[in-house]
């Protein structure tokens, strides 16, 4: 055993931002703009903020252009509400949609390279679920940076935070939040590169740690999305909201799960099973391959479950085919250039002459840390936790309800990043509160236990098994018995991880140690997801229960899950805000509870 773990130092700052993706950096940039005098620490788990996962977002960012006479904020709000299967909070939907175009302008002034139309104006494209006049026609509402919109946003927000003077603390993770008399006063961080634990005291702490996709075997999410933010919140005794609301994209490329956009199907790609049958005809006779994401995802899963999938020998994953061979060269070379190149890069296939392997891939976590419309974190009793904020995919305000529309996430990152920044400023205290007694002890005890554990178990292997169980039993299809089995497996995994011995004892850049800690976070997140899904005896948005295939008004609320000990959860409820409907303004009747039919 190496040296005894200890807290290396304590630093202080005005605002501590944990997570430097689109959401965290937008918040940082806003704070720097408004208050250049503030000292802001921006923490990221990756080696540099530009490496954050927002960079992979492709398609676009939704925002209603006030200059566009055909579109209106109310239409966008309706689409979001309907898409979310009546589980978004309408006050949040309104605030975020209303703030969209200002963010487009901010990005544009700060140098983002939006794609342009012939007149030199910002181009816009159509995206699934975005309509005008309450479903009557398609809306041109997504601004984009070619096929790398997230990268454009990432680079701009990072550049501005850098310019503003953010102190970046890279390759570092938050392990514990610090509270003093109920207020969040900072956090304990583990600096992975240096192998040091530090405490940071701050007047406000903003969590922006991103998604949790690594809970599932096939995911479009990055290696770092291990649900750390959710785990840290649960360990602080705070709840996670709607954890069961997890979105699966129907067509991830086998095996890495890389997103193959819907454009494949809208350009005429046909899904086929082992017998090469175009099976979507059986599931959606009218829309066939163009049916909404969740329907296509379920159809593919059914084919695979019923033995009509194909096993990829290298990745050992079952899939179906997408057939693009009949499409003209022009479509392959121009319209589908990027996606076609993904098949080439990741599967060595030529989509012009070969069938390409796809299957549903975990994509987005609608659930997360509950906040209000200002990004302030809420307790089970719906009271604000002073000094603590959450924005981006780790948070749940909730804009997306139980199903996120494409392009609405990037919108949320930016708008909520700014709003949270604004709220941080309006409530900023004069003085720092002291650290509570015993700050960091929990972290040190946890990491010491990892380093001292003995046994023959292997982190990578348990992680692999957990991801497999979650994909099979708490994935696209969910049923009571399967989820109970999954929960039992998770408890067994938790017992097995205690028997993982870490051979590298030096804490510097100790990948074994970091992955051991991440596995605990994955298990916590997986448990919250499974328990939430088991409790919700209905189907809503992306949450599909085979034993309860319909939505039920009995469950017209947000789930709150708290977990004191692993597997021991308690549930709370938060009402779904109906502010737009209740205000009885123009078109308010479009914001009632309605069926989600397309």
């Amino acid at each position, binding site marked *: 055993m190496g040296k005894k773990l200890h807290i290396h130092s304590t630093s202080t700052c005005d605002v501590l931002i944990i997570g430097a993706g689109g959401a965290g950096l937008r918040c940082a940039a806003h704070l720097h703009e408004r208050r250049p005098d503030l000292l802001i620490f921006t923490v990221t788990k990756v*080696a*540099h903020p*530009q490496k954050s996962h927002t960079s992979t977002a492709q398609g676009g960012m939704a925002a209603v252009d006030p200059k566009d006479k055909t579109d209106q904020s109310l239409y966008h709000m309706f689409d979001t509400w309907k898409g979310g299967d009546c589980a978004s909070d309408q006050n949040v939907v309104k605030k975020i949609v209303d703030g969209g175009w200002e963010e487009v302008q901010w990005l544009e002034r700060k140098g983002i390279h939006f794609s342009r139309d012939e007149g030199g104006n910002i181009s816009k494209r159509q995206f699934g679920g975005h309509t005008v006049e309450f479903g009557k026609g398609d809306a041109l509402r997504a601004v984009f940076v070619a096929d790398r919109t997230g990268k454009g946003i990432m680079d701009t927000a990072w550049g501005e935070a*850098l*310019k503003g003077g953010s102190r970046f603390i*890279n390759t570092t993770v938050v392990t514990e939040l610090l509270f003093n008399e109920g207020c969040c006063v900072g956090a304990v961080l583990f600096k992975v590169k240096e192998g040091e634990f530090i405490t940071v005291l701050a007047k406000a702490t903003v969590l922006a740690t991103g998604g949790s996709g690594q809970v599932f075997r096939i995911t479009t999410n990055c290696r770092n999305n291990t649900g750390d933010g959710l785990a840290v919140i649960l360990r602080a005794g705070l709840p996670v909201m709607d954890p069961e609301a997890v979105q699966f994209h129907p067509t991830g490329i086998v095996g890495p799960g890389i997103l193959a956009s819907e454009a494949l199907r809208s350009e005429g790609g046909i899904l086929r099973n082992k017998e090469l049958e175009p099976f979507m005809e059986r599931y959606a006779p009218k829309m066939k391959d163009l049916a909404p994401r969740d329907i296509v995802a379920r159809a593919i899963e059914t084919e695979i479950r019923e033995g009509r999938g194909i096993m990829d020998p290298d*990745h050992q994953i079952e899939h179906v085919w997408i057939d693009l061979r009949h499409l003209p060269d022009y479509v392959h070379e121009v319209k589908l250039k990027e996606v076609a190149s993904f098949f080439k890069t990741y599967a*060595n296939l030529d989509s012009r002459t070969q069938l390409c392997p796809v299957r549903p891939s975990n994509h987005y976590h609608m659930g997360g840390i509950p906040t209000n419309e200002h990004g302030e974190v809420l307790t089970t009793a719906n009271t604000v936790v002073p000094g603590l904020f959450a924005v981006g995919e780790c948070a749940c305000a909730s804009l997306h309800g139980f199903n996120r529309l494409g392009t609405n996430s990037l919108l949320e990152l930016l708008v909520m990043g700014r709003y949270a920044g604004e709220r941080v400023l309006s409530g900023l205290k004069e003085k720092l509160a002291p650290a509570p007694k015993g700050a960091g002890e929990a972290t040190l005890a946890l990491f010491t236990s990892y380093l001292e554990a003995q046994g023959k178990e292997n982190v990578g*292997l348990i992680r692999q098994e957990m991801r497999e169980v979650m994909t099979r039993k708490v994935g696209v299809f969910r049923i009571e018995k399967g989820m109970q089995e999954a929960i039992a497996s998770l408890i067994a995994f938790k017992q097995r991880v205690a028997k993982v011995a870490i*051979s590298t004892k030096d804490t510097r850049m100790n990948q074994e140690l970091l992955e051991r800690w991440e596995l605990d976070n994955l298990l916590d997140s997986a448990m919250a997801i499974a328990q939430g899904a088991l409790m919700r005896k209905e189907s809503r948005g992306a949450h599909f229960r085979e034993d309860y295939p319909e939505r039920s008004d009995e469950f017209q609320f947000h789930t709150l899950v708290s977990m004191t000990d692993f597997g021991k959860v308690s549930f709370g409820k938060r009402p779904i805000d109906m502010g737009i409907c209740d205000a009885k303004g123009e078109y308010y009747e479009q914001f009632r509870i309605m069926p989600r039919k397309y």
Partner: protein
Amino acid sequence: MTKTYSLTLTIKRYDPDRSARWFQTYRLDSGPILRFVDLFRRINVEQDATLAWASSCEHAQCGSCSVNVNGRPMLACELLVENAVTLFGTTVFKIAPVSVAPVIRDLVVDWEKAYERVHRAKPYLIKPKELPPGMTEHRISPQELARYEEATRCINCFCCAEACISGNRTFIGPNAAMAGIVRMMDSREKEKEERLDLLYSEEGIYRCHTSKACSHVCPKQIDVAHFIALAKEGAF
């Protein structure tokens, strides 16, 4: 039936605790379409949990996983076994960390140090141009954007800097130079003087020998040398 390759991966290792450096050989059988990151993960699970390697998005969009494979800087997340075998004509691979930044452990380098160059090139608009009266956004024609759009795809993987024959001690490096050049070309940047000062400084573009090694290795297929050539001519 799919093919199986019997691979030999000789990986350069570094343990900071013992200040030890050595090469370690791993043998594994793999199908054609596993990527090098998948191989590293398999080594962790099946043979050696201590091997440290870097990646994040594994979509070739973040540039965290650059390594030297048989002397060539590449992204481990998009290198398929089958392609590597074809490219190098062998199933034996020597894998080493990139040298543009200090090694922390095994294949993991301190990207922060490499990024210092990009930060020096100020990857943002130093002085953004004001909007024309009555406008809410700038107008930029697609033709104007097309002149520099390619350069904006750079993910700062530093493969170009690794391959650059000008070395990374005296030259700010191809990607950092390009970060400055893009903003020279962007009509929304008003602060051109400061940018020129850096581009034509001691560590600036005159260090470049126009060998085009950068363009050759760029995983995003950016013609980096073209942008440096434009800057040499002052053709922003």
